[in-house]
């Protein structure tokens, strides 16, 4: 089942060269593949047994026995929602790319390869396999940014690759040390073993840091975030949606799955580092946004800020109270999910604006509501969700994280909560400048949204509202994974 899920996009990508450069067929084909993936992940969500602990849909075969590497896949309540998020956002990304007309075959080829690699990261249960998918993701993204991007696209693409590779260099060393010390690359097995300095080549703290560097770059956390604004700004719309929506979630997922679940003790010892980085990114990202003049860059920095919340939630794992610890991790996971949909929608609507007005400068966009009311509506919904308006999904995640974190880190949380004010400030200011105000220019009626642009926006809006009103629909999944883990490690 999971094998099918991973490899269908590759199969689809390999078919593309045979479609004889017919743009229409290629587009429909890519859309069909991603829709199929979405259906598959929904099917898995429905068939997932919430009453059972541990991984489900597991597939485990030996791959390279001499190194102890296996082909081991499985999902639990933590990864399954992220798989769903991935497939959902890829449908959106492909759907809004229908208007692409340069080098169409390559474009969709790389998107499908990208989908495979991202899904692979979320569902592999073998460290080496995880690493392989983690690395494969770079190449498609490099091409997507550097060929179909705008502005200083080549510089940004290279920066993105070098930053991520730098992190994965550390991760490779870390995973080899882990694998050789314990004799297994199996993530499930490793999380059940208590790691001490005795059974490790070097102190596990260093290994934890090696992994953490890789994930913190991807997340991105201050001070390793500087690739993100460039990459986001210069990527094409669909690229930004995927980058913000899914790729940076790989970092958060990695921290929970590997840094916390495998290196439990170290995660507690170093949680001061996590909370500091989290709180700092949160405030820093929010302050930086005030100076941005490019909407995309502004949203990119707001991502840095929002990912700080993820770190904050994870740092609550230090607590001795299992409820608090699991609440923190669940909040972090929920924040990743909701940020994926919200930022996806934000970038999507910015992309729609850019397609019509060919500018992203805030000063040149005014009174958008008169010109393009529908896009404005989507944009406003997304920014309201982003600033944490109750009733929309962003609020639920933030409140969960802050509640959990406050129980452990009083002052850090008190400071962090101010970011809500800052976020509200820059988001409202942005909306006020871009959407409202006197409209300039004489273009009254911009091109209407096509079906392929409506559908992804509506999907995302629906998910934002549903999660805001009834979050436990996805919370149950996170609980399945996190509660058992926390109870095992902290004890009641």
């Amino acid at each position: 089942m999971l094998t099918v899920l991973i490899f269908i996009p590759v199969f689809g990508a390999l078919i593309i060269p045979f479609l004889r450069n017919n743009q229409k067929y290629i587009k429909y084909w890519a859309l069909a593949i991603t829709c199929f993936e979405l259906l598959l992940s929904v099917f898995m969500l429905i068939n997932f047994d919430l009453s059972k602990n541990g991984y489900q849909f597991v597939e485990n075969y030996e791959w390279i026995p001499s190194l102890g590497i296996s082909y081991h896949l499985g999902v639990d309540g933590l990864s399954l929602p992220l798989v769903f998020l991935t497939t959902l956002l890829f449908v959106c990304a492909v759907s809004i790319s229908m208007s692409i007309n340069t080098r169409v075959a390559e474009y969709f080829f790389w998107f499908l390869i990208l989908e495979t690699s991202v899904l692979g990261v979320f569902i592999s249960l073998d460290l080496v396999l995880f690493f392989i998918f983690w690395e494969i993701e770079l190449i498609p993204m490099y091409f997507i940014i550097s060929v179909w991007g705008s502005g200083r696209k080549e510089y940004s693409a290279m920066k993105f690759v070098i930053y991520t590779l730098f992190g994965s260099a550390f991760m490779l060393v870390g995973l080899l040390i882990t694998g050789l010390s314990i004799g297994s690359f199996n993530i499930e097995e490793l999380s059940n073993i208590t790691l001490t300095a005795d059974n490790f080549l070097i102190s596990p703290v260093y290994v934890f840091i090696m992994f953490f560097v890789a994930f913190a770059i991807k997340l991105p956390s201050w001070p390793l975030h500087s690739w993100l604004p460039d990459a986001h700004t210069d990527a094409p719309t669909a690229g930004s949606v995927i980058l913000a929506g899914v790729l940076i979630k790989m970092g958060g997922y990695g921290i929970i799955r590997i840094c916390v679940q495998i290196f439990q003790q170290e995660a507690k010892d170093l949680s001061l580092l996590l909370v500091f980085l989290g709180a700092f990114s949160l405030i820093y990202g929010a302050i930086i946004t005030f100076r941005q003049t490019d909407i995309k860059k502004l949203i990119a920095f707001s991502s840095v800020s929002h990912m700080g919340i993820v770190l904050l939630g994870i740092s609550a794992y230090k607590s001795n109270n299992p409820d608090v610890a699991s609440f923190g991790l669940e909040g972090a996971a929920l924040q990743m999910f909701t940020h994926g949909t919200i930022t996806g929608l934000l970038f999507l609507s910015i992309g729609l604006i850019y397609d019509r007005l060919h500018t992203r400068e805030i000063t040149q966009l005014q009174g958008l509501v008169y010109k393009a009311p529908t896009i404005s509506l989507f944009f406003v919904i997304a920014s309201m969700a982003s600033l944490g308006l109750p009733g929309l999904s962003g609020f639920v995640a933030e409140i969960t994280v802050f509640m959990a974190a406050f129980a452990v880190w009083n002052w850090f949380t008190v400071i962090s909560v101010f970011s809500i004010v800052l976020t509200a400030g820059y988001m409202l200011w942005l909306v006020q400048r871009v959407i409202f105000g006197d409209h300039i220019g004489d273009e009254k009626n911009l091109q209407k949204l096509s079906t392929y642009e409506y559908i992804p926006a509506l999907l995302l809006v629906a998910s934002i509202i549903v999660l805001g009103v009834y979050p436990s629909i996805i919370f149950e999944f996170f609980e399945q994974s996190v509660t058992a883990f926390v109870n095992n490690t902290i004890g009641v």
Partner: protein
Amino acid sequence: MDVADLIYIGSEIIVAVTATLTLLMGIFSGRYIIVKIVSLLGILSGLIYAVGLWFVSTSYVFYNTIHANQLSVFFKILVLVTLLLVITGSYDYSKYFGKLRVEYLSLMMYSSVGMMLLPASNDFITAYISLELIALPLVAVIAMTKEEYSIEASLKFLIFSAISSAFLLYGIVLLYGFSGSTNFEVIAHILSNTNLDSNISIVLIAILFILGGVGFKVGIVPFYMWIPDVYEGAPTPVVAFLSIASKSVGFALLIKVFLIAYEFADWTFTISIIAALTMIVGNAGALLQDNTKRLLGYSGIAHAGYILIGIACFSQIGTSTGQVAVIFYLLTYAFTNIAAFYSLMNISLSTNSYSIQSYSGAFFNNKFASIVLMISFLSLIGLPPTSGFLGKLYLFNAAIKSELIWLVLFGVINSVFSAYYYLKVIKTLFDSDIEIIKYQTSRSYSLNIVLICALLGVLILGVYPDPFLRLLETSLSS
């Protein structure tokens, strides 16, 4: 000597006879294609013979000067496969050789006879002669296009080979003076059973000289200077051959030498430092290159550095993990480099230039070669799912087992920086922002077949390496 000993060097004999036959046919028969097919058949039968030899039991032959074991057979197969691919793919390139294209075939074969003998040699004299047999025909082949660059390259190669031989001989003489023998095993036996207190410096110097001599061949710091120039000037098929077969057997000799050397001293630190320097010199040099062949030359230096990591961990964990890592890396490197050089050549046959700019937009002219080039460069960076990734994984794994964590960190960070210049070339291939010059691409079936074979090698070793690894492990444990 027993006549039956000859069976162990059967593939060498077959290839040498074919080489001579090729030369004669070149005089009497005018048809190049026939000569070429005969030589390919000769190499192929040598290859089949070598595969058969895999199942023959280990033995010392020719008065202990040759140790025929599975490892040596493995290198024979590697050399012959490389030669087969190189010669098959060079059909279109041979227009640059003019009238000398028959001599090109036979000299390449003579050189590969040396390459096949070297990993089997069990005696420094045999090893030395094999090395000379490798180098001298190559000197002639490098000059064969008769262009200024190519003659310069040939002269440089000649001089550096001579110097490296001098280094090697001096080291051999010192060892001989100490132990009274040139036989590897006798030397190892004497060294491990004598008290070396007062003489240790002589032996260390001898080993260092030998390391220098072989270091010239494989291109490690500080003996790498000839590589970029020779790679730039030499004909591309020869460069491919040089960078793969010559380097692989050089490492085979290095493995043998250091299996002895680790008996009496811990070389881990020295080798680690050399490895680190080699990596950094290779990668730093490649950053600034404008010519793809020079770039691959520097990248080859960097890769020699990675391979040295494997040799650095010989002493700590028993030798077999390090050896498997080195040999597997050489195997992956062989396919990757053939793919890289031949896809470069494929594109350059139409543009007549190897500068990076000349590749811009190559994808729109020659899709297949560009894709192969991209995959091979990704493999050189070490990105999955190509074989370059698993090769590196194996090396680093061995090094971490020997607790050389700093060296591994150094290696992986180096490969991050190497990504920059490889990606720059890949980006150029797919560049569509500039005006694309359309040109006629050469449709060469033989070249495309070679590219497909190399590509399959890169991908299969990257996705399903297990059978090869198991073969290697059994051959080393026997």
